[in-house]
């Protein structure tokens, strides 16, 4: 019966409501919310050309990397001195057998890059997962529990943030040795703080909301309140952050490996390929340029995807963007 009364109320207001809807359809007043509600995040992607290009490039690179053992023309450490220093296909002496040429060891560049990207993507994914889960949990605990625990945690975060991680990461790698697991550990250790900070901030802002208080009043455990009621507020901000962090970690891994503090032979990552070409920068710059370009394109594609996600997942950003397009084409600009 309750339902009926509500619907009565609605029918009695039909004309008003329809006028309101019509007004919003005519895009006067507050048109941006309507658009945000109507267009899903993938429709948004189609209208966002850079995001679309980014996702397309990223898909190709991920495909090539994931299926490297089956589709790469050669193995990552397959070759002899007889195949050393072959030029790439676009130079006159090049052949399609070694598309990007070979390095001084006789290894095929393209294959090494495909296998290297495989490792790089694996490391970056693991780091984002581990650092993300750890950081979000710590941030939830700090924000929700408050008190002395929160002060200790924020103090710890401040100390770790104040000192940039590269030097510490280099020392850690030098001590525990370069392997996939040690890189994942070191990069996670240096990367969890952003998640914790962001999570704590959001928790503090929603902690006083009635629905959170209601949940704990009806007897939900702290864990349930944190993960079921507070965490969903973080999805859009966290997924954008995770993608941006993914790009940052690709660069960090490449830097460590480039300095010789990453994976050791015969393992290969993109940074290792760049490191191998390092000493030939004057005689054969292509050995540095090719891996460097692949890293840059990969990171650029990830950054494009991140900017699409930021807009697609956050209604406020979509408003801003839509407002910008209106002011450009519609002449609302003053």
């Amino acid at each position: 019966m309750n339902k009926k009364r509500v619907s009565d109320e609605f029918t009695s207001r039909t004309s008003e409501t329809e006028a309101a809807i019509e007004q919003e359809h005519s895009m006067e007043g507050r048109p941006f919310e309507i658009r945000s509600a109507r267009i899903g995040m993938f429709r948004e992607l189609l209208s966002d050309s850079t995001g679309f290009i980014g996702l397309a490039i990223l898909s190709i690179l991920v495909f090539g990397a994931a299926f490297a053992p089956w589709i790469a023309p050669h193995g990552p450490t397959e070759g002899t001195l007889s195949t050393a220093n072959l030029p790439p296909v676009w130079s006159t002496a090049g052949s399609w057998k070694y598309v990007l040429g070979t390095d001084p060891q006789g290894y095929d560049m393209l294959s090494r890059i495909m296998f290297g990207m495989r490792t790089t993507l694996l490391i970056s994914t693991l780091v984002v997962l581990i650092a993300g889960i750890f950081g979000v949990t710590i941030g939830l605990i700090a924000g929700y529990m408050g008190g002395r625990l929160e002060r200790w945690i924020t103090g710890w975060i401040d100390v770790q943030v104040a000192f940039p991680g590269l030097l510490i990461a280099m020392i850690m790698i030098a001590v525990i040795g370069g392997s996939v697991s040690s890189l994942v550990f070191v990069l996670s250790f240096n990367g969890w703080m952003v998640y914790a900070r962001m999570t704590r901030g959001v928790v503090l802002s929603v902690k006083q909301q009635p629905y959170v208080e209601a949940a704990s009043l009806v007897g939900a455990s702290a864990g349930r309140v944190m993960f079921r009621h507070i965490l969903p507020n973080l999805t859009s901000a966290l997924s954008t952050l995770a993608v941006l962090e993914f790009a940052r970690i690709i660069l960090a891994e490449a830097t460590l490996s480039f300095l010789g503090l990453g994976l050791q032979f015969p393992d290969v990552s993109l940074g290792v390929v760049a490191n191998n070409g390092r000493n030939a920068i004057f005689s054969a710059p292509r050995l540095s340029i090719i891996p460097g370009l692949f890293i840059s394109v990969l990171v650029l594609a990830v950054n494009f995807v991140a900017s699409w996600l930021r807009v697609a997942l956050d209604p406020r950003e979509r408003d801003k963007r839509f407002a910008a397009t209106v002011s450009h084409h519609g002449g609302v600009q003053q």
Partner: protein
Amino acid sequence: MIRYLAGRVVQGLIVIFGVTIAVFVTTRLIGDPVNFILPLSASLEQRARLRVDLGFDQSIFVQFMDYIGNVARLDFGTSTKFTNQDTLDIVLRFLPRTLILVAAGMIIAFSVSIILGMLAAIRPGKVTDKILVTLSLFGLSMPQFFLAQMLIVVFSVRLGLVDIGPGPWTHLILPSIAIALPAIGRLAMTVRSAMIDELNSQYVKTAKAKGLRRRRVVAVHALRNAAIPFVTLAGWELIRALAGFTVVVEGVFGVNGLGGLAILAIRERDFFLIQTIVFVVAIFVVLINIVIDVVYKFIDPRVKLT
């Protein structure tokens, strides 16, 4: 003000303490420093002797107290790579070149990014803006070592323009550009978005309505307010350049600064030298952080230092 600064110094000491502990834990608990210092071929006898010599046979607590005591007396031990020199002396010898490099790079980065960010913000969405945004996104996506290598390839190998060999000052030109470029990308974006916000604000409209020239409105009224987010990020860039990026750039260009020394120390497993480098860098990081807070106060009198 003074009370505030004292608080910040204490906070800074905590950071230095934390970093010291991190290095201590990494080198002595996760790894065995004796294995770290000696080559794999060292005999058991040599290992045992070194362990006793350096006090690594004691309990971890005693080691830690010794370590803190030594740090407090600024006794950082002697280097193994540079036979028996005091590590602090070595670090102080290598430090000036890095400071010049980072300072030059940051001066370039700050000035160029303010100009570019302002240009982009004056007409957002127009050609200049789009080119600058795209360029900086490309710049952000390149690993710094790759950028440095490309500078070498283009300017040194192809054009033969800049002498990158050992020279008095000229050899720092390319490295400082390599330090500056990624920072320009990030900072110009900060200036751009801050300026767009400010240019749309009421006080700028008032200033325009009063009939002030646009150049004055942008450069005087808006810029000062946009400087607040800029200073935060500029300080962070400076810290990251000093405590990270310079290692990469000096490695690529072979500059004999603190970054090059850090790579050498890690490669040669010069245990005490590494600890000293990290300690000195940590002091700089803390000092920069304090300076940034004071700079805030000067830019924005509304900021209360409490």
